[in-house]
């Protein structure tokens, strides 16, 4: 039996702004298993990011249930969620979001500050992660001294340095040229195949989605049944 990493039932997210109610996600049921690499596709505004945020407990559902790695995220306090995220989830942003005043090595070391590792162990882990994304020779570079593709690879190293079971990526290639995008995709592929990481990647690029082992489509907040393509 496959281990379920993410399990959502009737997951709903409604935004209320003034008198407008926006249903970003409506009754989403989804099971994502250990070792899967799922691409979430769909047009802009279909709720892809919202689903990713709910999985990472960066936001709360307004209806339904979600369990991630066996944890009912609603039951955890702010502090517990922070610690849980640090241990279990690596998040990759479209805009990289590196800390500009820290070097590549320091950026990658940052999540390890929350662990019990000592300074030397932290540096070893961070160096290993940077080597894994092919940046072993850029340890002392600041983000502004790196290309977009390199920045995103540092961000990936930062996301995997605590060895989380789950990696979430929101349009990780959205700001990259084709060659850099391809590098990022092959790193994600490798993390999935060689390191057994479960990955959920939001993308609206069909080419990028081909790196995944499974593609799911969202449309106006609803998740289409597995295998079904959007109408148009």
């Amino acid at each position: 039996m496959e281990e379920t990493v993410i399990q959502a039932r009737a997951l709903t997210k409604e935004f209320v702004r003034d008198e407008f109610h926006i249903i970003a996600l409506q009754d989403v049921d989804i099971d994502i298993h250990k070792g899967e690499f799922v691409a979430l596709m769909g047009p802009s505004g279909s709720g892809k990011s919202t689903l990713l945020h709910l999985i990472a407990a960066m936001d709360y559902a307004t209806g339904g249930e979600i369990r991630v790695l066996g944890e009912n995220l609603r039951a955890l306090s702010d502090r517990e969620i922070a610690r849980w995220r640090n241990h279990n989830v690596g998040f990759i942003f479209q805009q990289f979001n590196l800390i500009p005043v820290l070097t590549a090595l320091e950026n990658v070391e940052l999540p390890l500050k929350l662990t019990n590792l000592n300074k030397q162990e932290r540096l070893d882990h961070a160096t290993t992660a940077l080597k894994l994304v092919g940046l072993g020779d850029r340890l002392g570079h600041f983000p502004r001294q790196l290309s977009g593709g390199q920045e995103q690879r540092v961000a990936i190293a930062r996301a995997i340095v605590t060895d989380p079971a789950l990696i979430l990526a929101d349009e990780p290639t959205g700001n990259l040229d084709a060659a850099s995008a391809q590098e990022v995709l092959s790193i994600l592929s490798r993390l999935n195949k060689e390191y057994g990481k479960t990955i959920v990647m939001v993308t609206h690029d069909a080419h990028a989605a081909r790196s995944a082992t499974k593609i799911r489509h969202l449309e106006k907040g609803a998740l289409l049944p597995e295998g079904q393509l959007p109408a148009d």
Partner: protein
Amino acid sequence: MAIPLSYNLRNLVVRKTTTIMTALGIALTVAVLLSILALVDGLRTAFTASGNPLHVLVMRKGSDSELTSNFTRTGYQDLKFKAGIARNKAGEPMASLEIVTVINLPSVSNPDGSNVTLRGLSPIGIEMREGIRISTGRWFETGKREVVVGRSIAARFPASTLGQKLRFGRGEWEVVGIMDAGKSANNSEIFADLNQVSSDFQRTEVLSAALVRAADAVTAAALVNDINNDQRLNMGARTEVEYYESQTSSALPIQFLGMFISAIMAVGSSFAAMNTMYAAVARRAREIGTLRVLGFSRGSILFSFFVESVLLALFGGVLGCLLVLPLNGVTTGMSNFVTFSEIAFDFSIGFPIMATGVTFAVVLGALGGFFPARMASKKEILVALREV
């Protein structure tokens, strides 16, 4: 474990102009505060060093300074044979009748002249002041129109150097010596023969005050009581230490003004720090969101921004100390409001005063940093990430 300090330090360096401006505001505030503290401290040192715990100063009842006191020669005859008064090697009671008045001397900073305390005393009075040494020249001779000037007077008044003549009273007086009274207020006085001064100022019978030495500390307290309760003598007594401590109050108006100014500046610079930190929080919203996603708690975000503000203020505090450091040891004169004469003292900026300044700066930084830091910690992750 927290967000590393280097993160805060480098952000302070990155926005160096704002950092320097804000730190400078705090530095000036600290500098004002420290100057005042150094002034009061220097003044207190000058006054308290002047007091000998065995010395009892006897003045007219209700008089707060020797200058406004009267003491008759007959009163002195009664006083000097009281029990508990120490005697010198020759067996004489250690009791000195003195006259204190103010004369005007032209000074470096004030050609119209400044007021200076003139003290007429007899050899026993000099003998009682063991802390005073002649650094150049000699003591005045009894019966001659000679004066010995304090070290600070010699430095501040060009007319009062060795061999010069000073004009006051009924004529000229020759400066025959310069005395070093350590840190005591006597450095700001001129000493001359009791009878010469009293006759020049036509006060041969009614002088100012008497200084007596008790045999020991317990006797000193008893002697003070005895004199205060003596109906016939009708004089007031207090220990010299007490007397000089009360004189420190002459610095109160300046102290008050200084504290008032630094309080206003403190409010200003604390708000400046707050402004700077609010701007930093706004500019780094996305970083805050990212740190939260990496697993840092709201608490560590709050702590990090708080620490950054405190670091900024610490920098200002140290800068403030450096600004006032050149004042250390600078001798200056201040009008003593009790005796209406000038007293010279050293600004003393020691470690405790600098520690006070740095602490004060840190408090300013903490006050200014708290609300911005709290705002940073309250941001929702997604809201923070969306800000540019």
